């Protein structure tokens, strides 16, 4: 865990209201793993006051990784190459929803951001795992791409199910590592399959050694209702409102079988079976 000032390298609206922010953050990369997050403050002084928790979307490791999964985007702007960030760089994928993310959306290359991170426990891939099933609802895809990168680096097979309300919420396939099997569904049928993402999970359960999920509460609850075989562990990344981000304020707790756990420190990744969902 470090508290550092990092430089914005790029910030592009890649989907309506959704931004891909690239940071130069070697101190963070050094200790980072997928499923962890950054607690971000854009030097917006005393208002808004609190930091915003945002997942590590891509973690720039070795240089060779750059070749795969890159894509050119950026319309009228000077064309920007996205994909796996360079070593020492981090990408954040975020939606503009309120005051903090609106300010963050305005950040420009060269701007400084104050970040604390990497925070939280992160996903863990078990030694025997070969096949990973990733289930993303909306921007819940953000941390799962870092996990996909890690799995592919370890020569595992990854299927990513991504659901969104409409096609505007679907991350372009060109921004994912090409090795990932990408299955899309939308609530309105405007892209991919029509319906919710959790309906696709049962048919892939036999294949998957481990399941990882991130998305709105309703999606996590739907997953819990699927009565998954007990042999499969399902790791879910939760969201809760945070103040400190380091386990000190107890603002972010969630009920589990082990009692109240802090999403920022004991999570954000929990075993689905451990959670007490309402």
């Amino acid at each position, binding site marked *: 865990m470090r508290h550092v000032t990092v430089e914005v390298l790029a910030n592009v609206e890649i989907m309506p209201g959704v931004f891909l922010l690239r940071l130069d953050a070697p101190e963070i990369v050094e200790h980072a793993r997928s499923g962890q997050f950054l607690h971000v403050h854009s030097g917006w002084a005393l208002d808004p*006051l609190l930091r915003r928790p945002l997942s590590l979307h891509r973690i720039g490791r070795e240089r060779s990784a750059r070749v795969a999964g890159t894509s050119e985007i950026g319309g009228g702007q000077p064309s920007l190459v996205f994909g796996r960030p360079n070593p020492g760089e981090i990408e954040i994928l975020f939606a503009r929803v309120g005051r903090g993310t609106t300010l963050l959306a305005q950040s420009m290359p060269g701007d400084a951001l104050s970040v604390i991170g990497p925070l939280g426990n992160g996903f863990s891939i078990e030694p025997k795992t070969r096949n990973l099933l990733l289930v993303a609802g909306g921007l819940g895809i953000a941390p799962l791409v870092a996990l996909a990168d890690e799995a592919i680096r370890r020569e595992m097979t990854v299927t990513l199910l991504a659901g969104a309300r409409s096609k505007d919420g679907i991350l372009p396939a060109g921004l994912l590592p090409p090795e990932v099997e990408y299955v899309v569904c939308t609530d309105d049928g405007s892209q991919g399959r029509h319906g919710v993402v959790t309906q696709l999970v049962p048919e892939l359960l036999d294949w998957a050694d481990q399941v990882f999920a991130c998305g709105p509460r309703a999606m996590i609850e739907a997953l819990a209702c699927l009565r998954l075989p007990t042999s499969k562990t399902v790791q879910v990344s939760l969201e809760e409102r945070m*103040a400190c981000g380091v386990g*000190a304020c107890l603002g972010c*707790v969630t009920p589990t079988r082990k009692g109240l756990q802090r999403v920022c420190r004991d999570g954000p990744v929990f075993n689905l079976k451990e959670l007490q969902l309402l």
Partner: protein
Amino acid sequence: MNLSVSLPLRQGGQLTLRNPVMTASGTFGYGTEYAKLVDVERLGAVVSKATTLRPREGNPQPRIAETPSGMLNTIGLQNIGVRALVKEKAPIWARWSVPVIVNVAGESVDEYARIAEILEGTPGVAGLELNISCPNVSAGKIPFGVDKNAAAAVTAAVRSVSSLPIITKLTPNVTDVVEIAEAVVDAGADAVSLINTLLGMAIDVRTRRPVLSTVTGGLSGPAVRPVALRMVYQVAKAVEVPVIGIGGISCAEDALQFLMAGATAVEVGTASFANPMAAIEIVDGLERFMLQEGVDDISEIIGVAQ
């Protein structure tokens, strides 16, 4: 240049802080959570999260809501209970040279005294801060701190069983804070600290419901600072014992305002969430101010604005 301050104690002796900057209860956990980011040994003191007699689960989510230059919280005193604190946390504190003050919360006068008894003689515990903003269960859940008799009763009960420095922490949700301060000082408090959070609320206009699970919560952060400063100024004028200023302090200039209003020390709370280094930066800033202004001893500026 001398940054250290001391709080003289009723029973003789004093509690000496290497500088007047402490962390505020509930915003710095047990001091261990921030250890990777902040060198706690540079602080004047650490004040721990409130402890109750038995472990407490606290309130349901949502527990926090951001507000203009501040936040509301309704953590509900979630904590591990005093026995686990003595067993698991105090031994860590005993290895630190920075004093750790334990914030104590109870549902009855007896409960405060019971907790103080258990903490008595525990290595690593340098003092008690009595959080009297908690509901008094035997008095219709009215907080002890809004009634001068109840506030005094808690202080006296703890005084009678404890040899530790006792700081009674005042709530701002009262008509006349000076009256309460005087009552707890008469009851034996070595010092008073103020302010605890201001009662507030927020409504989510989309769901048409209060944001916090308990409807109301405690407001903290820069937004409360002028109110806190006013109360510290009033109380410092009225009482003889040291006053510890709390409320929205996020930089050295804020801390200086409280010291000049009459506070002997300050506690930094919500600011640490935005900037974990806030308290340490305040220590550095005080030092810089003293250098620039030719102040040799921090005590020279305490209360100068009175």
